[in-house]
């Protein structure tokens, strides 16, 4: 059966060159990168070479790159590490956590975080957990194109100075500890104006984190241009293996470690390094750097063709947030009057892979929080599908998609009571 994979924002295939680069580290060069013997040194060299490759991709210094198990860990680390008691990076010592346990809870009461309503769940759920522990979080709204207004960030910043104790008066003093705003959105592809937001963060001396999992490898990412202090990225979104990612930490940023253990990565992120995975990430980063511009040019043409083609061939459709600046590969389309879940299944049975909402929320009852944030109704959110192209997507796959999607939508609408209602309500438009 013809298969077209249009779900690259969920994950990407590992490049043959990446796999080739990784293989020796499962066999010939299997050693622990922290061992002092020669085999260990070879593994160590490979890890450090990969660190340079990742740093080069985002214009960082190698010592500012910490390898993690992926985007989710990096996000958690950036957020919890900034709100808990602090240690200046790259120090090798961290405070004994058990000493501070009560102080930490009361300190959290004064801690404030700024984020948005369209973040990935790894960021949102971390923020919600902080709220349970006593911190406050502002989730900035986005416009219908999914974009945050930098001025809304400025307005949300809390810089109350601690005041002298007043007997019998209880108050919550808030101080913004971190601003965390994603670079490119996983469902819509929309790109946030990080440069402007970063400048505001710098003015107020507030650490600025971005979840760049969907942007690294697709569009140029320069930590200095973007004015970010912390950045998360994930290998499997840029043709590397799953289970490895990185957290960029600008020198001088105050951040607490998340995991406790051995002395790996300066004791800051313990755990025997996943050498093969890290080598894979490094190679993927190197490849991305070289092909980013040509990839973007080619993929955006195919994406636009798919988007325009679907809107033209199928009535009562709309591209969500298409007017915004987006990554070159993503299109999110509302197909009125059908259940997105049913369409994804129907398309899969025809050989086309795509998704409704984000990959990690399949089977959930709630409509996508991202689509709700840009103003879609629950019904519209559930009727929207995401198609995300990749480096190796072909013209033939797009032609195939333009062939099977209209037929599938037609089939669903023929049996859909909500489509009849939609037609009745919109009989004057098309």
């Amino acid at each position, binding site marked *: 059966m013809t298969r077209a994979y249009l779900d690259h924002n969920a994950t990407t295939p590992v490049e043959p060159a990446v796999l080739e680069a990784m293989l020796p580290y499962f066999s010939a060069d299997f050693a622990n990168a922290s061992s002092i013997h020669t085999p260990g040194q070879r593994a160590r060299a490979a890890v450090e070479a990969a660190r340079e490759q990742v740093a080069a991709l985002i214009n960082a210094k190698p010592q500012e790159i910490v390898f993690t198990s992926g985007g989710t860990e990096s996000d958690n680390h950036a957020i919890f590490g900034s709100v808990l008691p602090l240690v200046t990076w790259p120090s090798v010592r961290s405070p004994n956590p058990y000493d501070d346990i009560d102080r930490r809870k009361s300190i959290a009461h004064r801690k404030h975080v700024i984020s948005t309503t369209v973040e990935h769940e790894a960021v949102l759920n971390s923020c919600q957990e902080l709220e349970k522990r006593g911190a406050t979080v502002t989730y900035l709204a986005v416009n219908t194109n999914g974009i945050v207004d930098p001025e809304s960030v400025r307005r949300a910043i809390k810089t109350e100075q601690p005041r002298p104790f007043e007997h019998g008066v209880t108050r919550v003093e808030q101080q913004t500890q971190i601003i965390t705003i994603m670079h490119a959105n996983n469902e819509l592809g929309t790109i946030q104006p990080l440069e402007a937001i970063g400048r505001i963060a710098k003015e107020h001396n507030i650490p600025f984190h971005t979840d760049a999992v969907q942007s690294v490898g697709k569009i140029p990412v320069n930590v200095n241009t973007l004015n970010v202090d912390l950045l998360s990225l994930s290998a499997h979104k840029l043709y590397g293996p799953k289970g490895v990612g990185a957290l960029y930490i600008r020198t001088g940023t105050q951040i607490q470690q998340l995991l406790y253990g051995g002395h790996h990565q300066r004791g800051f992120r313990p755990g025997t390094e996943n050498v093969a995975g890290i080598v894979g990430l490094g190679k993927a980063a190197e490849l991305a750097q070289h092909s980013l511009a040509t990839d973007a040019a080619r993929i955006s043409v195919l994406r636009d063709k798919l988007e325009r083609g679907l809107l033209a061939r199928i009535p009562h459709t709309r591209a969500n947030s298409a007017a915004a600046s987006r990554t070159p590969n993503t299109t999110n389309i509302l197909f009125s009057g059908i259940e997105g*879940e049913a369409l994804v*299944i129907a398309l*899969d*049975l025809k050989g086309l892979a795509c998704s409704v909402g984000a990959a990690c929320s399949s089977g959930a009852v709630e409509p996508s929080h991202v689509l709700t944030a840009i103003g879609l109704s629950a019904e519209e959110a559930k009727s929207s599908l995401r198609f995300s192209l990749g480096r190796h997507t072909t013209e033939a796959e797009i032609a195939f998609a333009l062939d099977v999607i209209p037929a599938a939508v*037609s*089939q*669903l609408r023929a*049996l859909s009571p909500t489509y009849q209602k939609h037609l009745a309500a919109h009989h004057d438009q098309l």
Partner: protein
Amino acid sequence: MNAVAQFDALPTSAETQRGLIAVAMSGGVDSSTVAAVLQQQGHPIVGLTMQLWNQRRLPELQGDGPKQHRCCSLDDVYDAKRVAQHLDFPHYVVNFEEQFEQRVVRPFVDQYLAGRTPIACTNCNTDVKFEPLLRMARQIGAERLATGHYARIRRNGATGRWELLRARDESKDQSYFLWGLSQEQLSRSDFPLGELTKEEVRALARRTNLPVAEKPESMELCFVPTGNYVQFIHAYAREAQIPLSQTEGEIVTEDGVVIGHHHGVHNFTIGQRKGLGFAAGKPLYVLSIDPEKNRVIVGNDDALRTTSFAVQDANWVSVGLPLGPIRAQVKIRHKHEPAAATVEPLSASTGRVAFDVPQRAVTPGQAAVFYDGDRVLGGAWIR
């Protein structure tokens, strides 16, 4: 042709796979065996598991009861997927939580609070399994939906009607829960297990090496895995902010003499003997429930016998709406021996049933299903 006209001219019937059958899979041995049987017969199949109720939704019910007998849990989805992998066919989880709550759970709670004894499984069949699930199956390109129900469907060549029949294995027969299905629904459904006994089904499952061949049956309501429906009603009512009667209600005799008190009519069903909270000379049974006055009326066993009762929301299956009274064997409970009766339609949806011999504990909320031998003529809710 402009784009819209081109769109309208697209074929609407599935060209994915001719004869694709969707199998409703609960993760249990019955529906898994259905998949195996259909595949052995050469049909292309696709498995669908419905997500109906979030078991974590009512926190006070967590940690209760044996976890392995919970239907629609993640374990059951996992089991269904394992079967699909083993037999190599596509499998999807589809979410009908909203419909299930609206059409099964909420009515279940409302009925109990109104002093009736509902049958959730019938509502699920009529309004969820054979409605949005069947529609979803058709939308994704399957023409038919197969389930693991023990019942049989056949087309009557003479009358042109789709008939519903009891299963061959009477001890497993589930036709009592399927009386609400329309001709359209029956025409697109398959019950491959209708001719098999439970032992034969398990033997088939074992022969096919199904991962679930030895899985025990789930006996309880899928959304009340502990079987404690009173606890469920309290938890759900609390969350949905349905007011429960705060005052104790009265337990009275047929003459209106108050002989005790109760904590909610939903704790009782007609014919119930236990739970009356006091010791009387003779055994007393619940005769009827008056939700408005918050009263439970009790009496002797003989008073529990009813000859004639009213029914509503009738659905005619193997025959069309009769023009006058007909004879049938009527079941008023799943575990009830069908008894000879005269069924008289009073309108398209209402009627009266008169037993030849008075039957025990006719219960509002249950279903009266009219049989003619193995055929289900139709059914209705008991008023």
